[in-house]
């Protein structure tokens, strides 16, 4: 059998994984959901044909979207996660004993059900007692929150589908309003490399920088995402992502990670020149 999953990273670039077996295929009110089994990457989840995570490399993404803000502010107690129906971000958050509450807002209930059934490695923390799941539109949920979260994790899909709302100025503005005084928002920030991803990346940065006094971008290397070079956004009201980091304090927590460490924390905010330029271009842009 020669069965392959392929995703077009651009019209002329294709990324393929040899598939042993398709474990699930279904359509929700919002999107097409598929889970495959492969030898190289283990199980992987796709939404509308776009790679969301593989068992093999998801640790990179989830380490970086959770531990970076958690290390900057050790006083985070209330967390809101938007998107992330696969449970990976919640799994990493649940490792902090002192977090009191985790609210997960996912628009698509079926993604959570499928993850629970087929992706036990990421969905293992759905039973954490501190977790409450809301199946609704993220923008709608956040609109009603005021000064109530210390951390918001925006684990969205690409801005060309149901995740579109989560890349808008109105969304970022509502996040700002929902955060406490030392609040931090981190978001999946697309990639700087291919044109369409880079446009989305720049638009997101522009809107975040217009909304938050501190808006920085950091990077990670994720083999199954387009170009492998992926960015995250760090936005906050007061805390600086590297100046305010206290490495000893985070290291004393004894949280085992495969990708994140406090040295890497400093390094990941150092970006390639062309990426710095792209970010600067939109920061200086006037409407």
């Amino acid at each position, binding site marked *: 059998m020669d069965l392959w999953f392929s995703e077009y990273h651009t019209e002329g670039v294709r990324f393929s994984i040899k598939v042993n077996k398709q474990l699930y295929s279904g359509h929700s009110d919002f999107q097409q959901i598929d889970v495959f089994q492969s030898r190289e990457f283990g199980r992987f989840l796709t939404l509308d044909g776009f790679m969301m995570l593989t068992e093999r490399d998801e640790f990179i993404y989830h380490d970086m979207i959770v531990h970076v803000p958690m290390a900057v502010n050790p006083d985070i107690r209330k967390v809101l996660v938007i998107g992330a129906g696969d449970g990976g971000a919640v799994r990493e958050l649940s490792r902090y004993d002192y977090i009191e509450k985790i609210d997960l807002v996912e628009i698509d209930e079926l993604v959570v059900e499928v993850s629970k059934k087929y992706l036990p490695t990421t969905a293992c923390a759905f039973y954490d007692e501190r977790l409450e799941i809301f199946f609704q539109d993220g*923008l*709608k949920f956040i*609109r009603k929150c005021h000064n109530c979260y210390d951390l918001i994790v925006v684990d969205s899909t690409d801005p060309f589908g149901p995740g579109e709302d989560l890349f808008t*100025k109105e969304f970022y*503005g509502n996040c700002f309003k929902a955060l406490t005084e030392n609040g931090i928002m981190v978001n999946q920030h697309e990639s700087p490399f291919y044109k369409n991803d880079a446009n989305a990346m720049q638009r997101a940065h522009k809107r975040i920088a217009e909304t938050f006094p501190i808006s920085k971008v950091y990077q990670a290397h994720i083999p199954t995402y387009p170009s492998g070079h992926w960015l995250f956004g760090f936005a906050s009201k007061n805390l600086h992502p590297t100046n305010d980091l206290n490495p000893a304090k985070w290291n004393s927590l004894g949280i085992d990670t495969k990708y994140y460490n406090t040295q890497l924390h400093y390094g990941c905010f150092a970006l390639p020149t062309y990426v710095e330029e792209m970010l600067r271009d939109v920061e200086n842009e006037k*409407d």
Partner: protein
Amino acid sequence: MTKMSLNQSRAPIKEALEEFTLRRVVPFDVPGHKRGRANAELTDFLGKSCMNIDVNSMKPLDNLCHPVSVIAEAEKLAAAAFNAAHAFFMVGGTTSSVQAMILAATKRGDKLILPRNVHRSVINALVLNGAVPVYVNSKVNKTLGISLGMSLEDVKRAIAENPDAKAVLVNNPTYYGVCSDLKAICKLAHENNMLVLADEAHGTHFYFGENLPISAMEAGVDMSSVSMHKSGGSLTQSSFLLINKGMNEGYIRQVINLTQTTSASYLLMSSLDISRKNLALHGKEIFKKATELAEYARWEINLIGDYYAYSREIINGDTIFDFDVTKLPVNTLEIGLAGIEVYDLLRDDYDIQVEFGDIGNILAYISVGDRERDLERLVGALSEIRRLHKRGRAGMLTQEYIDPIVEMSPQEAFYAPKLSLPLSETVGKISSEFVMCYPPGIPILAPGERITADIVEYIRYAKEKGCFMMGAEDEEIERLNVIT
């Protein structure tokens, strides 16, 4: 509701075009793009299927100037769907429908009773044929700053004072969704031997949805202009002119042909045909969904605070006899921002385009094409605009009804010898041109009207708030043409 007859699942113009395309006829006629082969860029941009049906009138495809086959059939189906005696396919926008009905109902010197908040196309028609407007004060709701429908008493008075008037024109509904008591106005006008004309540019859905205001044909209106391209979903610029029993179809066709193109676009006509089919078959569900979306957004917007997304609660039995719940007008004055300012913020900062903003309101146009998550964006953005931009209400002007002083017919004034004066020096003079904010395109000043200090003040304020002003020869409206 209408009893539709004939087979509404047919679309005769579309079917004829499909058949015609299959015959692969070699074109030695216009249009010169020859099914798009003449210009690859154009064909790439619009698509091959679009270019293929951009063809000339010919025997198998009928001719809009004198329909005898497929267009005639399509018009019959449309008439049945709208419960009209006849439906004319129109390709010059609803402007052409409005003008045709006025040109058919009045002639030089005739009086037409109408509310002030008419679309510019109405007064343009009077410039064309020399009929004279008799304005009924369309009252203003002071809190909302919107002009309303006509009060029945005011219409009665206008008819009594002008028994020689030929027709009464009614907006059904206004841009904001407000309806007058159309049935009672029809009865009153008909008892006085006047025709009733309806501008239903914003009322296509009344013919198909449930629990919506009464449609013109059902109320007994003689002629109505229906913007299929708005809530009906056909292509921009396509429209219907509906007539009721007792109207002379042949004469109205002659009037239409005075100004209508002889090269009517089959893109527009087929879009009318296909959209009529869609509404006839699925209109009920389509407008049920649109209503639900509008009601949901209204509820959420009212929860934000300060904004007022109004609905049926403003009905007062007269000047707001009914309200179209598919519309989503939102009053912004309590935020301390003019509607036009919120309109600009939505577009510039949030990439959200709403239909229009005026002095005190914005209007979001909701249709079945909208998705819940898009409405969330609108609500989310309005909530952000309030958080970031709310300020005191001081200095906010609301729209006032400025009673027009008609000194001569629009036609006389438009063609009279004129002089250009700076805006501030025009007070007391008679205007020879229009001034309006667009949208909504309702005149502040029309040819033949006396300019007052209030009008000049209003123009200044609207300009300052960023309203897109048009109609006058001087695009900046620093100067106005007045009659010498």
